[in-house]
């Protein structure tokens, strides 16, 4: 028999799952093969070590600690539900009120609303569009200036990197703070 097959049999033998014939075959191989014999001895030593290791038991009061954790979870869930209830309830209420008010305004004050829109709404939208154009032009100017000056580009990259690292560090400190609080 091949040593690799014998190795598989060793594990089965350790669990008492080989029949007499197979066990005799294994013993014969072990007598003839020093490597397999050493491996078998190591496997037996490991098995004895594991069998002798005691069951690990928790410190006294474990059931009480589980009960406390369950109560904490239940209280936390209740808190979350009540906060969500208040939030969604008020959001729903405000939305309903807003919709009702808007509908009322549209129905009753259609004409004044149209005047307001043409007088203030349209010029405001036009102004916002031109502001956006100005901002985009400014950004384009900054980008083209950066691309022309390598030093400025390096400084810009450095600033972004420093900002990223600062954010990362803040996150680390924040998580650590949460661990300590928990």
């Amino acid at each position, binding site marked *: 028999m091949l040593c690799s097959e014998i*190795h*598989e049999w*060793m*594990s*089965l033998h*350790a*669990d008492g799952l080989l029949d007499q014939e197979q066990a005799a075959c294994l013993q014969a191989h072990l007598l003839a093969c020093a490597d397999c014999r*050493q*491996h078998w*001895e*190591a*496997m037996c*030593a*490991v*098995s*004895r*070590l*594991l*069998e*002798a*290791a*005691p*069951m*690990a*038991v*928790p*410190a*006294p009061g*474990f*059931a009480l*600690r*589980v*009960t406390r*954790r*369950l109560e904490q*979870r239940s209280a936390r869930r209740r808190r979350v539900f009540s906060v969500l209830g208040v939030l969604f309830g008020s959001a729903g209420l405000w939305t309903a009120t807003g919709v009702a008010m808007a509908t009322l305004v549209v129905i009753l004050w259609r004409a004044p609303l149209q005047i307001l829109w043409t007088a203030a709404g349209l010029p405001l939208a036009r102004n916002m569009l031109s502001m956006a154009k100005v901002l985009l032009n400014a950004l384009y100017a900054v980008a083209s200036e950066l691309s022309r000056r390598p030093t400025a580009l390096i400084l810009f990259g450095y600033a972004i990197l420093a900002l990223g690292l600062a954010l990362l560090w803040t996150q*680390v*400190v924040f*998580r*650590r703070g949460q*661990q300590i609080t928990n």
Partner: protein
Amino acid sequence: MADERWCVARALQGDQGAFTKLVDIYQTPVYNLCYRMLGSAAEAEDAAQETFVRIYKHLADYDAEQKLSSWVLAIASHHCIDRLRRRRITWLPLEDVLPLPAETRDTARPEESAVEHESSAEVRDLLQGLPADYRLVITLRYWQDLSYAEIAQIVGNTESAVKSKLHRARRMMAQQILSQGKLEDLACQVPQGKRVTDNAVL
């Protein structure tokens, strides 16, 4: 068995005392499994507590045809495997990257110092040298004394996969002690025979 089923039925009706009784029955196998899988007393305590929280939440899903112990151990096993997966991508605690003040460095938590002094540090090293799924089948085989079929049911593998994992795990552990030249030490150190009856508080 009937007692356990009664506890499950009562716990489902909201009887906290019945659930506490279930915790009492299964705390040792669950804690032992967590400890052997995670290798730390503090983590095992947290994982075992979390296992019972999950059991409580999913008690209604328990199929009475199944053995309760298998169901409980399956939940504990999956939780430990999840933790070990998360451990690979978890952020390092700050004290692992920054030097600690001198006064806190040597004052380990009581449960950890107890573990440090336990005689089975060798066992822990052997187990921690195994992949998590191998460690799981070894724990279920040696400490829970389960058959291949029962282990297969708990870990969700076939019996032949369990047989193969046990074989590979034993081979890895044997090679580990041979490569460290510990065979003679172990032969002298470990008494022949079955597990000692006293449990160790870890």
